[in-house]
Every structure is written in C-alpha cells, then in structure tokens.
C-alpha cells in the first residue's frame, strides 16, 4: 500500500514536471472576483492563448502564475514547483506585464544589462542579440525615456526572451506595435516554442495571435473556458 502511494507520488511528480497546473484558482480584490475557480493544465512546450475583454482576468491569472499575486484559494504548479510554496516565482521565467516600466534614464542595452546582472546567465553579446532580434539597435544611445511606445514594447519582449526562459508569459505582447512589429513578435513566439519554451499569451485581440496557439482559452469575469476549434466541434 505504502509502495503504491510512493509510486503514485513519484509518477505524479514526473507528470507535474512537464505541466503548468492551475487548480481552482480564486482571487477576490475589493469584493470583485478577478479569478473565479480557474482550473487548467498546460503541457510543456505549447503556445497557449488567453483571450477576453479588458478586465476579464487574463492579466491577473498571468500574475498569479508568475507568483506576483497570491491566490485566495487554489494552487498553481509550474513544472513541478508549487508557486508560493516551493518557490516564490517560476525558476525560469520571462515575462511582459502591462504597466511595468524600465529605468527611464538608461538606454535599452543598459536596462537589459542591469536585469541580466541578477542571474548572470548571459553576456553582453547575448543581450545585444536579444535587442537586435526585436528590431532595436543595441548601440542606440537614446534613453528609455525617449523611446516610442512601440520601442518600449519591443524592449519588454527582449528582456523576456534574452535569458531563454522555459516559460514565457506575454501579456498583450502586440500592444503598440506596427504591422512589422507584429510579424516580428509572431516569429519570435514561434522560435521560442521551437527551442522548447512554453508560451502563454494574453490578448484582447483574438485575430493577432489566434493561429499561433495550440489551445485557446476565453476569460470572462474571472472565469476560464476553453474554446474548441470549429473543426473539432463538427467532428464531435
């Protein structure tokens, strides 16, 4: 009996290590349910889209997965780590979240260099490569303050991908981007998946990212439901 239990636990852990498991996640802020009993399992290596109107709870779900907010009830496990218990944040995470800025008096390169100095995983050349990949000039001497909205968004994407994280959480990654920028982001997301990253994307604009996503979820007033593709609906 004891051996069976151990075996089950071990097996469960193995499965956990390749999944993001959100179980009954709920969060209430000022009397308003921003997450309402959300449960979802996401396999490693996929691209998952979360769509919904502004204020539907996408960002809050992403913040919870990233460990930036605490759930009132429910659990989140990211690749075997219980967020808020084993570790505060997923160990290998790249994230873009709305309304998080950089240090305005520094250049894009300097901003990324400061962030990279926390983990010491990458060198200057890799920082430059990340900047170039999003279409920014690594030797640009303009400070972040003088960046356009599109450039700020590109810099956000560069900081998210530069350390080649296992999990990428992109909240509205196409905001403020022109057509060229949008195509670049789509390419980057595909590249990240090809190297093995799991990508979670939130957008209020379904058309931008719909085709990329292996599974799509709709958020409405804090509740999550999976959208079944039309062809599967017909088959079933």
């Amino acid at each position: 009996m004891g051996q069976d239990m151990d075996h089950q636990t071990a097996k469960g852990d193995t499965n956990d290590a390749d999944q993001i498991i959100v179980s009954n996640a709920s969060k209430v802020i000022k009397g308003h349910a921003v997450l309402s009993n959300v449960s979802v399992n996401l396999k490693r290596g996929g691209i998952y889209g979360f769509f919904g109107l502004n204020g539907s709870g996408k960002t809050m779900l992403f913040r919870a997965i990233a460990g930036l907010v605490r759930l009132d009830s429910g659990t989140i496990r990211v690749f075997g780590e219980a967020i808020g218990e084993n570790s505060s944040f997923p160990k290998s995470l790249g994230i873009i979240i709305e309304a998080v800025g950089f240090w305005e008096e520094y250049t894009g390169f300097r901003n990324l260099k400061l962030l990279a100095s926390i983990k010491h995983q990458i060198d200057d050349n890799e920082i430059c490569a990340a900047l170039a990949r999003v279409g920014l000039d690594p030797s640009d001497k303009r400070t972040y303050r003088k960046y356009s909205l599109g450039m700020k968004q590109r810099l956000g994407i560069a900081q998210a991908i530069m350390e080649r994280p296992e999990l990428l959480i992109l909240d509205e990654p196409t905001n403020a981007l022109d057509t060229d920028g949008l195509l670049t982001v789509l390419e980057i997301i595909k590249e990240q998946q090809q190297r093995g990253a799991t990508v979670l994307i939130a957008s209020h604009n379904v058309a931008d990212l719909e085709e990329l996503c292996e599974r799509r979820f709709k958020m409405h007033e804090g509740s999550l439901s999976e959208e079944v593709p039309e062809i599967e609906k017909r088959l079933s």
Partner: protein
Amino acid sequence: MMVTYKVRKEKAHALFPVQRVYAIRLCIVLAICVLAGVLSPFGYHDSWSILYQTLGGGVFATDGSVPSAFAILLCVTPTFIFCYLFSDYLRNSLEHAGAYVFTRTIKRGNWLRIRLIQLGGFVCAYSFSGGVFVGALLFLQKGMLGDATVQGWQVVFNFFLPAVTLNMLMLLALLIPVNILALRLHPLAGFITVMAFYFASLLLCASAPHSITANWAPLLPTTQGVFAWHDTVFTQIMFSPGVIEGFSLGQSYAYLLVLVAFEIVFSVVSIKRIELL
C-alpha cells in the same frame, strides 16, 4: 552564425538607478551634517552636541531640569532626515521594473535579503562617515582634544567605534519598520508613525525625573541608541549627569540586535504577502 556586437564598456560595479538615487540622498544628509557642524561654532551647540547630533540619539538625560523639545528635536534631526530620505527604499526598489527584477530573484526572500543588505550598507556608510566627520571637527575645534574632560586620541577611538555601532543598529531598527510600513501603507505614513514614537519616547525619558528614566530607558527600544545615557567609562567622564547607572552598551547592542532580527523576520513575512498588482 555567431554575431558579435560592439557596445560601450559598462562598469561592472555600476549601481542600479534606485541605489544611485539613494547614494545621492546619503550625500545630502551628510552635507547637512557638515553644514550644521561648520555653522555650529557660531550658534547654539558646542562640539559634543554636534557629535551627538550627527551620530543620532543625542539626547542628554537630565538630573532634574527639563530639556526643551526643540533641543531634542535638533539632536535627532539628522536621524529624521536620514530616515525620511530612506523611508521608501524598499517601495522604490519594488516599483521600478519591480516585476522584472522580482521574478529573476526566484524567491521573495532573496530579493528582500539583497535590499536589506544594501540598506544596511547605506546605514553603515552614513554612521561611519558621520562619525569620521565629527571626529575631524572635534579635532579641529579642540586642538588635540586637550580638553580637561577628554583624554585625547584614546577617547576618540574608544568613543568612536561604540557610538557608531550603536548608531548603526539604532538606525537599522528604525528604518526597517519605516520601510515595511511604507510598503504596506505609504512612505510618509511609515516615517511619521515610527518617528513619532521615537521622538515621543525620547522626549518623555529626557523630561522625566532621573529615577523614572533610569527604570524605563533600558526597557524601551528607542532609547537604546542614546549613547549619552549609557553607563560607560567615557560617558561618565563627559556626561556624568546624564548617565543611567547599569545601562550598559553591551545590553543595548544585544537588545538592538534582537530587535533588528525580529524586524527582519517580520519583513520576510510582510514581503511574502506583497502583491504586484
């Protein structure tokens, strides 16, 4: 194909912008202290008062007479300025690119540990440079410290280290709760709450009869930083009316260390509950 980019050489020791801002603030506090010290020969205070002002907690217990609140306020002004300028240290660190920095530290405790070490570094730099400045000023004002009550260089060295250490611990004990309250409420709320308690307790102890102060001062957290009240060979020489018998420096070090440790534990609990909305 590997592409190599040419970028300007960055200094490895470059401070994060937030730390740079606070380094500037530290210089401002020290400049105020220097200004007060330089102007003091023309004003109200003698050179020993400057020392106590700069090292903080410069309150003289009375043996019956009541000191004015203004005099005590002057003595603790450098501490107030320092605590005010550093009251939002944790909050500012969290607000600037907070989510990007926070998530890279893996554990919230790691983030807090680094910030508290940095805060401790600023406190040490302030206390130490303040002490050095006062030592230099005293040296200039009193010649070779040939004052009848002071026994030369030996006092400077023996006095300097215990006073600076006490000041560091007291400042840390004040700054940590100020910063935690700033995180949860507002920097000004944190500053006012802690400093009001600090000032009120010093004023009460300094104004109360010596027998009452002698009973209460060793028990209160805020009075531990008042070097002048401690029962040491140096304070007995210089401030015999203010000394509280049996109020030893060792006891205050231990008290403040335990207090700071307790505050750190409380900070860890608080930071685990902080949400980046």
